Structure formats: C-alpha cells, structure tokens
C-alpha cells in the first residue's frame, strides 16, 4: 500500500468534537434509512444538535421496502459490527405499502441470523418518522451501546 493511501485511511475516521462517549469506540454500524421519514428524522436530530455517537454510517434509500435482506448480510460480510434499518411507521409509508413488505422480510432475517452464526442483537429495525428527532437520538445511543456490549463478550 502506498504511503499517501495508508495515511489517509488512518486519519480518516472520527473528525470533530467528541460525542457522548468519552473514549472513541470503534464499532462500525451501517444504517439503511428511508428517505422520507427516517433520513429526515436523522437530519432533524443533526440540525437540533442532539449528541449521538459517530459510529453510524448512513445509506439513504427511497423506502425501507427497498432493503434487500442481502444488503444486511453483505454489510456483515464486509466488516460491519451492527446493522440498523429504519423507515416510516406502518400505515404511514410514503409509498403506501413498502414498509409492510419490509417488516415481513426483516423479521424473517432477524430470526434467521442466529442460525448462521450472527448474534441476533447485531441487527435491528425501527420506525422513526421525520419529526421524531429525539427518538432517533435514543435509538442510535441505545443501539451503539448494545453493539459495544456484544463486542465486549
């Protein structure tokens, strides 16, 4: 690996002031958020300056129904320690039905993961609407803590 590339990777993560946790934990969490509710909610949490751990890496999708369960498995294969999926509340989906399908698929995946050797606690799916900035903050803090507990074992 060339020197420039190596340096860039080492200095890359975690710029900015420290978050809630005093020491910087290095769990990597991937979050798939639906554009209309959860992404807006997370954005609202950001503009309201609600403090959260920085370990979440967000991927924006049009709807939680777009989440193919294989995305989650690929994320785990590529080194994610935890995966979070969040969408609109059932009955409030921007596309009417997307999150109903998502609920079925993601519940199936959640039950299946322990059978292939991935701890059930590493995956979670939530419903966070655009106005629930506070809820998003709580979800992130609690999920990161849960993953850190699982990693510590």
């Amino acid at each position, binding site marked *: *690996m*060339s020197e*420039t*590339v190596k340096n860039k990777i080492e200095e890359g993560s975690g710029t900015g002031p420290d978050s809630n946790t005093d020491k910087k934990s290095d769990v990597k969490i991937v979050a798939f958020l639906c554009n209309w509710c959860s992404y807006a909610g997370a954005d609202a949490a950001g503009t309201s300056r609600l403090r959260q751990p920085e370990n979440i890496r967000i991927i924006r999708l049009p709807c939680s129904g777009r989440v193919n369960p294989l995305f989650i498995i690929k994320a785990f294969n590529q080194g994610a320690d935890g995966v979070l999926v969040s969408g609109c509340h059932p009955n409030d989906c921007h596309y009417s039905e997307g999150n109903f399908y998502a609920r079925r698929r993601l519940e199936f995946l959640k039950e299946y993961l322990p059978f292939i050797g991935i701890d059930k606690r590493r995956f979670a799916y939530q419903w966070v609407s655009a106005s629930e900035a506070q809820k998003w903050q709580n979800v992130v803090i609690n999920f990161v803590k849960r993953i850190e507990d699982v990693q510590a074992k």
Partner: protein
Amino acid sequence: MRVIEYISKENTKNWLEKLDAKNDVFLPVQDLQEARIGFLDYKEFKKLVQQSKESPEKRYVINHREKTALSPKYIFFPETEKLFDFEYLKDIENPEKVELRLGAAEKTESSGRIILFGLKPCDAEGISRLDRVFGEGDKKDNYYMEKRKNSLLISIGCNTPFPDCFCTLVGGSPFNFENADIGMVEVNDGYAIVKISDDAKDLISENREYFDKDIDKTAIEEEIEKIIKSSAEKIGHTWEDLPREEISKIMDESIGSGIWDQITKKCISCGACTYVCPTCYCFNIRDEQKGLQGQRYRSWDYCMNSYYTLEASGHNPRPDKSLRYRNKVNCKYNYNIKRHGHIYCVGCGRCIEVCPVSMDIREAVKTVIDNRQQASD
C-alpha cells in the same frame, strides 16, 4: 511388467516421512467421519491425526484405492489464484498523471519438490493433458509451470476398478504408467515398483534403506500378471470399440443434428462435472478494485454455464444447454484431438458419479456414433 524394486507397506510410511522432510508430499486421505476423500498435504494430515487422537474412532486414513472426490489438478491449478496486485498512484501536483504499479504474485518459498503420492493412472494422465495445455506452445502459463516443473507423480495401479471407470475406452489402462514418474503396483503386502523416471531416480537411490533387498522378481511378476488380468475383467464399460481414429470426424458430423437435444434432455446445466474433471482447464479472469487498489485473479469456470459465451453485445451463441453440452463433449473428443493429439477424457468416471441426474458421457458418445451409423445406413 518388469519389477525393479519392492517396498513393504510399513516402509512406505517411513519413506514418505523422510521425503516429506525436504519436499511437499500430497496423499489421498479419507475422512471417515465426514465421509470425504481428497488429496491433502502430508504435514496437514499429521496435524489432523494428532488433533483427532482424543476421539475413540480412527478418523483419518490414507486410502489410494478409492477415487478422490476432486481430481488432483487443484494442486497445480488452484480453484482461485491471485495473478497480481495493482495500484493507481496519483500525483497531487499533477492531476493528469496517473501511474499504475503492479505487484508480482508472491512466490511460495518451497525448498523442495511437490510429490503427489497415490495417484491413479487416470489422474496422472489428466495432469499430463493439462501439461500440454499450459506448458506447450509459445505461450506458457507460468503460474502452472512454476509449480509443475519441480514436481513428481507417483502413481499406484488400480487393482479393482469401479463400475463407472472407463480408462480403457479412451486409450488408457489401470496400469498405465506412461506419464507417472514412479509407477507402483500393490501386490502381496507392499508395492512393487515397475517404473522409475530419470527425474525420480534420487527418490529411490538416496533412500535405499526402505526398499527390500533380494526380492524374488519372477514370483512378484507372476502375481502382477494375475492382478492385471482380474482388473481388466472389472472395467465397467459395455462396449469395446470407440473408433479412436474417427471419433473427431464423427463428432464434427453430429453438429447440427438434433441428436444433442435428445441426449441432454435430463441435464440441468450445472458445473459439477467440469469441476471434478481432471482435464477441464477453462478459467475466468476478473479484476476486483476498491478505491485505487485492486487484484487480478483467476478462478475455475464451467462451460455449462449459460453465461459462458455471453458477449458484450448481449448475443449468446450457445443459449441452450444442448449446445453447451455438445461443446463440452466435442472439446474432449474432437477439438483437443486436433489441437493436442489426445482425447481429453481420461475415463475416470467422476462426472458420472457426481452428476445429480446421472448424465453419462459414455452413453452420449455412443449415441452420437450409433446415430451416425443409422444416418449412413
């Protein structure tokens, strides 16, 4: 067959142990618990035997009489092989300039030779077929030849062939040691050595203490004749005359006839037969890149895949499974005879064993030959 040396079973173990000290010995190992048979590095085998000593049942044994699940070609031609690394180096001062740096594949620092012990004659033939593909002509495959040039093949004849063996149909035999460096026959309670090539002379001459002195060569040769005769009676193919001189022409004429549709009705077009075949050599080359760095690697490919001949335009010359199977059989019984002078099927029968719907290449070839005779009548 002329007997040159004789070694008892007990001494064979010790001889292999001594050879393994300075070389890499591979032998066929049977895992009795998981019911698998495959070629394994001798050092790996010893480690597994050590680990399994706690369990009451014996788990790992050396067994050269059974066919291994995969042919030993993966020792020289691995399933996945890295060809090289590459990296794009950008200059911050000069954005237009991009340099590409290639890293060579790591050369394994092997001190000695690779020795394959316990090969069946059909597998040794298979490796010699691959030698022609990768090692002849003006373009040699260095990744294969680097491993192969320092290797020796020790082949043990088949005293008991299986119902799906047909090496004699394609010009081989259970005691064909033409392409082995050392040829052995299991007789009495040991092995008689009936061929030693020049490259392998030192394996014997530097380890004389393991080989029996004062052997009764005539008696052993008589035993060997009996074994050869009983083995010939057991070879499981039901017809004698594959017209080896004409098969290439017969196959050419079958292209375009509807006989291939009939033959492949039950084929499911998977890749199981090509992966276990000792002479299949097709591979896929892919580049994988993340950011500015990447790797080029090659991996086994199978001609039965529907995407095998898919072109960038979207056109596919072989969209049907009958065309792809026709290509596979022709590659073995037609095109490679023209290119390299040999039938590229060694009669090991692994494809027949492994096929989930029991496609039989012997039947396919026979149907083509019968069909041509009917057409000419």
